């Protein structure tokens, strides 16, 4: 059965005054129907741009699709016109954004914003649409939704607003929901509740989710498969379980090492030195060379870029010897 979403060698470049920024530089990724696929990486690794480009939400200019395909249920999203893409947006694929405080229109009531997808895609109006919206609110756990639906966003807390975003995304029963760091802006306790709601609804509706985060713990909690991105490219991808037990790429291993939850009491915390390279001036060979302390930096490729290879069934990793070399200690 072909995957629901099949991204092949996606390349998105931004033409700015400081030169061409290759934010997404050859990303391939598959999401099966009903699967929760995770994308993890530091900020600036291109994970959000990848997600946004699927729905054409990257402003062109300065952005430009430099190459690649994004097959979704048989059609390449990248080649659709604005009008055709609108048919998919909010109907077949919907998105949940990071900051609930700014993602809802402060000047419109919650009801209006919830009903809008129904108006656009199902031509529903008035009473019937309102009931669907109230049901959606109740499904995300908002008490006496019937009264509160007519309130304005500023009358809701951060957590409740994110629930509204979730309700809005699921109200048209899409096939795929892209969640771009949905809980990063929330404090921990509320984060738990929102993730709980997402997991419950995902199971009930069987919707595929593309979960984007920089928090490794979350990935393992939510996702079936994980793709690690660095400097606009995929460095490693595998099922969640495989990755947890045997990360091979130096960057992935570094991520796991620097996760505070994993470290025992009293021993020094490890963090990957330096910061990600400037996407406008990417190095020729392996992008992780300067920061590779867990592998063997000298062996990192310098002349050509490493490619993804399948070292085990369902487990791909960049074939850079330096990064694959085991750590000395």
């Amino acid at each position, binding site marked *: 059965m072909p995957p629901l979403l099949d991204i092949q060698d996606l390349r998105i470049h931004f033409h700015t005054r400081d030169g061409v920024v290759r934010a997404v530089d050859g990303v391939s990724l598959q999401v099966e129907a009903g699967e929760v696929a995770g994308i993890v990486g530091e900020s600036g690794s291109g994970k959000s741009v990848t997600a946004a480009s699927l729905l054409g*939400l990257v402003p062109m200019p300065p952005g430009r699709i430099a190459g690649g395909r994004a097959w979704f249920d048989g059609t390449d999203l990248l080649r659709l016109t604005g009008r055709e893409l*609108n048919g998919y947006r909010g*109907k077949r694929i919907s998105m949940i954004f990071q*900051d609930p405080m700014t993602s809802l229109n*402060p000047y*419109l009531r919650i009801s209006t914003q919830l009903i809008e997808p129904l108006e*656009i895609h199902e031509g529903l109006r008035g009473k019937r649409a309102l009931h669907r919206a109230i049901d959606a609110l109740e499904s995300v756990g908002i008490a006496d939704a019937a009264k509160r639906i007519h309130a304005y966003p*500023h009358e809701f807390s951060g957590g409740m607003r994110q629930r509204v975003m979730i309700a809005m995304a699921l109200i048209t029963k899409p096939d795929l929901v892209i969640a771009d760091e949905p809980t990063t802006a929330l404090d921990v306790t509320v984060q738990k509740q929102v993730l709980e709601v997402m997991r419950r609804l995902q199971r009930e509706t069987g919707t595929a989710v593309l979960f984007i985060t920089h928090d490794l713990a979350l990935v393992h909690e939510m996702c079936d498969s994980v793709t690690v991105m660095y400097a606009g490219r995929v460095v490693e991808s595998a099922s969640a379980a495989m990755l947890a037990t045997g990360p091979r790429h130096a960057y992935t291993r570094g991520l796991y090492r620097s996760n505070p939850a994993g470290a025992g009491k009293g021993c020094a915390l490890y963090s990957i030195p330096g910061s990600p390279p400037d996407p406008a001036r990417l190095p020729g060979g392996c992008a992780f060379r300067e920061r590779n302390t867990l592998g063997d930096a000298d062996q990192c490729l310098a002349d050509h870029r490493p490619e993804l290879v399948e070292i085990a069934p369902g487990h791909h990793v960049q074939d850079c010897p330096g990064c694959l070399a085991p750590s000395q200690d």
Partner: protein
Amino acid sequence: MTRVILQRLLQGLLVLFVLATLTFFLVRALPYGPFQDERAVPSHVRERLEQLHGYDKPLVVQYAMRLGNLARGELGTSLKVMEGREVTAILAQAFPVSLALGLMAMLIAVPVGVAAGVIAAVRRNRVVDYAVMAVALLGICLPNFVIGPVLAELFGRRLAWFPVSGWEPRDLSFMILPAVTLGLGSAAYLSRLTRTGMVEVLHQDFIRTARAKGQRESWVVLRHALRGGLIPPVAYLGPAFAATVSGSVVVESIFQVPGIGRLFIKAIETSDEALIMGPVLIYGSLIVVANFLADLVQLWLNPRLRSNS
């Protein structure tokens, strides 16, 4: 809500009081009295006139009498510009003209300004944007007493599309040139403010959310962005009306529009105190009302303000 209205009413009265006092003493401080004339007015006649109009009483008494009359709504009689005529009668004929011109100017300025601003914001950094902004900048920098005569010369005399001066209440063609001259400055300001407001809003996250819902671009702009984008220009509506009202003083003299602006200038030249006081109070109350309306629209636009006001 009523508390706000009451508070605004009080402030309005305070404004009118300040205006009345300021005008009274400023005019009285002018060195030449209203009773001088081109031909020498015999001294016994001037004494009689001063006695008749209470100019011989001490200043404070005159001021108190003046405030008393104003409180009762009597604006007094003009002493020079239209000697002996009740100011209320003069203004009754002149004020509707100025109001019509002012409203016509705003009717031209607001839609044109806002539309230009929205188009410029949507087509940001493209030819349309630069063109609109350049015209807007010109509109701000060109004084109305240059635009007026140029328009009059071009459209009035050469092309004879519109009359060059004068006024026919029911005939719109007389209003076009003065209203355009008067409204151009405000239209320019409004377009710049709308553009800034719209650009600001179009960058907000909820616009991206709206697009993610599959909403058509035109709806995204008009339904989602416009309400937020209008806040800066609406804040300017009050001062825009004030500028239009003040500007009418100049435009009315260029196009011979029989409004209170022209009356005001003539009254100043002859220190005709009652006829200065009338327009000043009218201008003042118009501006107080305009500011209040602008705030109401602001409240309607922005629910966040409504909840805590």
